């Protein structure tokens, strides 16, 4: 089953290119550490999922590239082509001349309707190339104008045009200390709109990835390219083929569907966080050994204590005792549902019982339903063993609350509102969005 990726705006396109690059280099790599048959299956599945084998020798990514100005797309296309191992189709991009000016209203109300037909035509063409369409994966940032505004509009169009397909939005959250001054407005508008049309939001925060680059990857002068490569690695660790419970003996044929089924039991709770372990510079890999119990232990504590990476975890945080008390322990991250994905040597014997502990979860689902695991013996991206956690929990509660708080603060002073009003987004529209998000915050807080 195939997934069509829609890359929106500068961030979406830059990350998208790194994702396809990572996927391609992983399947071409010789560090699979599994049987040839397994490896062959893995490669075929990945290729079907993300690439199209056209007459050209090089696999073509199943992607649509959208931006309102041309520089990034042309760079993205040429970087892909230069790799020599994969490329984008020359017909799958749409761009304009003048960007969205970091204005969500411009992206949503002006560029959206104006270019809807052209963009949806491209998506339709890509969808038709798939034997079986597994759904859509959109990549965007929520701080700017195109990814955020046009991205929200396109998501809605996807929902309207493909009512039964799964839509997963990958959303990048900007640095808290500011990349774009109106980022909080754009974020509030984006998140509230996506909540209505998307199936789930998979979030990466620039601050968190930056920390990983600084502390785990030991990169001295961190560039956006470095950040994007870590994000691509984390996404690859979720989307590369795995054997799931519902998949029978082969690789899963419905990754997006199974993701949604495992993680989104209730429409009010759609925010997914992502953690990956281990992360280290490639040069250190040959000198490191990992044990599954160690990795699982760390991953579980990262979940419970809401740690952003495997260093600096607060081991004091414990789940609430089995005797129900009115005081939930502070800093404890309550989950609705979790998905752990294991890749590499000896996966089949790994004990994941600690993730099934009912005290980690809210009481609505049976712990057996709240937790799922996907596995493959095929190692990913040169890591002999790696584990990813996709979690529907309170991971994103604090950052979300912070963004909404700052946006509200600015809204109360009415700053910048004239810039949005110019393109048709009025104060009432903002209020609706704030209400939606306060509802989400309240829901997650009261887990």
């Amino acid at each position, binding site marked *: 089953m195939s997934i069509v990726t829609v890359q929106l705006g*500068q961030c979406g396109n*830059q990350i998208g290119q790194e994702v396809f690059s990572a996927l391609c280099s992983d399947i071409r790599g010789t560090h699979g550490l599994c049987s040839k048959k397994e490896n062959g299956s893995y490669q075929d599945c990945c290729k079907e999922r993300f690439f199209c084998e056209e007459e050209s020798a090089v696999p073509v990514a199943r992607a649509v590239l959208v931006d309102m*100005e*041309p*520089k*990034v797309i042309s*760079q993205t296309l040429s970087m892909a082509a230069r790799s020599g191992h994969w490329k984008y189709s020359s017909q799958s991009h749409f761009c304009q*001349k*003048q*960007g*969205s*000016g*970091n*204005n969500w209203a411009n992206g949503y109300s002006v560029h959206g309707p104006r270019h809807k037909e052209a963009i949806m035509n491209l998506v339709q063409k890509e969808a038709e190339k798939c034997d079986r369409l597994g759904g859509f994966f959109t990549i965007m940032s929520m701080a700017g*104008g195109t990814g955020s505004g046009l991205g929200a509009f396109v998501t809605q169009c996807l929902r309207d045009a493909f009512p039964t397909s799964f839509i997963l939005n990958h959303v990048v959250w900007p*640095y*808290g*200390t*500011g*990349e*774009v*001054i*109106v980022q909080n407005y754009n974020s509030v508008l984006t998140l509230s709109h996506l909540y209505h049309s998307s199936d789930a939001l998979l979030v990466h925060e620039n*601050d968190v990835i*930056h*920390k990983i*680059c*600084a*502390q785990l990857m030991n*990169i*001295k*002068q*961190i*560039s*956006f*390219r*470095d*950040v994007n490569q870590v994000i691509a690695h984390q996404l690859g660790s979720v989307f590369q083929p795995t054997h799931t419970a519902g998949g029978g003996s082969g690789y899963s044929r419905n990754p997006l569907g199974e993701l949604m089924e495992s993680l989104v039991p209730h429409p009010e709770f759609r925010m997914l966080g992502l953690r990956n372990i281990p992360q280290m510079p490639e040069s250190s890999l040959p000198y490191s050994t990992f044990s599954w119990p160690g990795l699982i232990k760390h991953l579980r504590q990262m979940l419970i204590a809401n740690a952003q990476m495997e260093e600096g975890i607060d081991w004091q945080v414990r789940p609430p005792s089995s005797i129900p008390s009115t005081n939930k322990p502070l800093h404890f991250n309550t989950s609705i549902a979790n998905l752990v994905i294991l890749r590499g040597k000896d996966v089949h014997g790994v004990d994941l019982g600690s993730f099934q502990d009912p005290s980690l979860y809210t009481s609505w689902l049976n712990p057996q339903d709240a937790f799922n695991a996907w596995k493959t013996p095929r190692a990913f991206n040169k890591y002999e063993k790696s584990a990813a956690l996709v979690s529907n929990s309170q991971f994103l509660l604090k950052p979300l609350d912070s963004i*909404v*708080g*700052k946006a*509200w*603060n*600015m809204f*109360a*002073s*009415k*700053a*910048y509102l*004239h*810039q949005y009003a110019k393109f048709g987004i009025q104060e009432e529209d903002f209020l609706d969005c*704030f*209400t939606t998000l*306060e*509802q989400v915050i*309240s829901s997650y807080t*009261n887990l």
Partner: protein
Amino acid sequence: MTQSVVVQVGQCGNQVGCRFWDLALREHAAVNKKGIYDEALSSFFRNVDTRSGNNGPDIYKGKICSLKARALLIDMEEGVVNEILQGPLKDVFDSKQLITDVSGSGNNWAVGHKIYGCQYRENIVEKLRKTAEHCDCLQCFFIIHSMGGGTGSGLGTFVLNLLEEEFPEVYRFVTSVYPSGEDDVITSPYNSVLAMKELNEHADCVLPIENESLLEIVNKIHQMINSGKLGSTVKQNSLVTSSAGSAKTLQEKPFDAMNNIVANLLLNLTSSARFEGSLNMDLNEISMNLVPFPRLHYLVSSLTPLYTLADVNVPSRRLDQMFSDAFSRDHQLIQADPKHSLYLACALLVRGNVQVSDLRRNIERLTDCPHAVLIYPFTKSQSASSPFYRNRLKPSLHFVSWNQEGWKTGLCSVPPVGHSHSLLALANNTCVKPTFIELKDRFMKLYKKKAHLHHYLQIDGMEQSCFSEAVSSLSDLIEEYNELDATKCGPRIDPSRLKIAI
């Protein structure tokens, strides 16, 4: 890719404009090695096939044939424009882009605005349309003028008005040179205040410049070179004051050095729109992020570095110094004190080999954010942000309560000529208030005595109300800044959030 058109009005406007075109050509020549007409060039230049004379068709791709500036040169005297047309830039302009007259405006805003405005209106509109037609996607007009005289100030603001009427969707960025207190034009306060009203109402963004600041920068560079304090020699072509070609001594054409600074400002402002980078910052983003309320669109600019030393190794300390410099008074283009006033918003446009981590580190440093300690632990390479070092840093910048993280950042990979990296800081800060208050005071000193008023009132279309409306517009603007300043000292009370019924 979008295009921009430069409209240079008056003596000052044309002199600065001339320096801009010179440096723009130099910058593109340094980047564009293959001589192919590319999108970056097209933002400011047309490529014309001049084999069939100057009226040849535009060539959109392929080799560079003849570059023509997307510009309109307007002056009511011929001296400056003629000098440009006889100088090395003569082939960059075409006679259809000029509008000149002979007698000048006599340092009288009303002559520039009302008389010449009326007289040349159709001519100007026609030429603007022509220039716009040559553009695929026109994004912005840059107006360069001075405020104190007659043509730049009067006719310049008339053109501003016209641009809003004829091209309402296109941004209007105005670079205005404000007169100093000791300006030798007696009526400069009148001209400036009358022009301010137009800027308040019709400009999207204004970049005020003061000659005093430019002179201070020029003198500082001169001193540094001559004092021999610098161990190595300064790279000549890296001076923010230097012109293309051979180095001229600063004595020969003092205004040239000052004008080069302004030209560099414009080049840096548009660099991220023209060249690629990991975090682009287009002109419409500048306007979106830096203008929280429509009339508060005056941006204080500062440029660093002013020069580069010949040794090429740039340790990150030097990089951090660049950020600190951008917030020091020595590098600002107006005489104001943003550090002790209130920031409404601030943009940092970085060029060259600078990455996002350098940017984040310096923003943490400048805002003295308490999180800095957690994110960057004690490591050798990051000692600049260790807790020990933090105590020695200067006090943090004050941002308005609703925009505490009010930073807009851009990273452009292409550095300016002669530098490995550079930074342009644009701040929307209440420190412009004293400049405006002084201007108003100088205006009132003359107005109370009705000095020279008759020169203005005798012009058709000028009435006393023009003056009272202009000063009232300025007062309103000052009052808006006052209201914001008042929030600086009070306790910070965040508005309460919406409550959701469970």
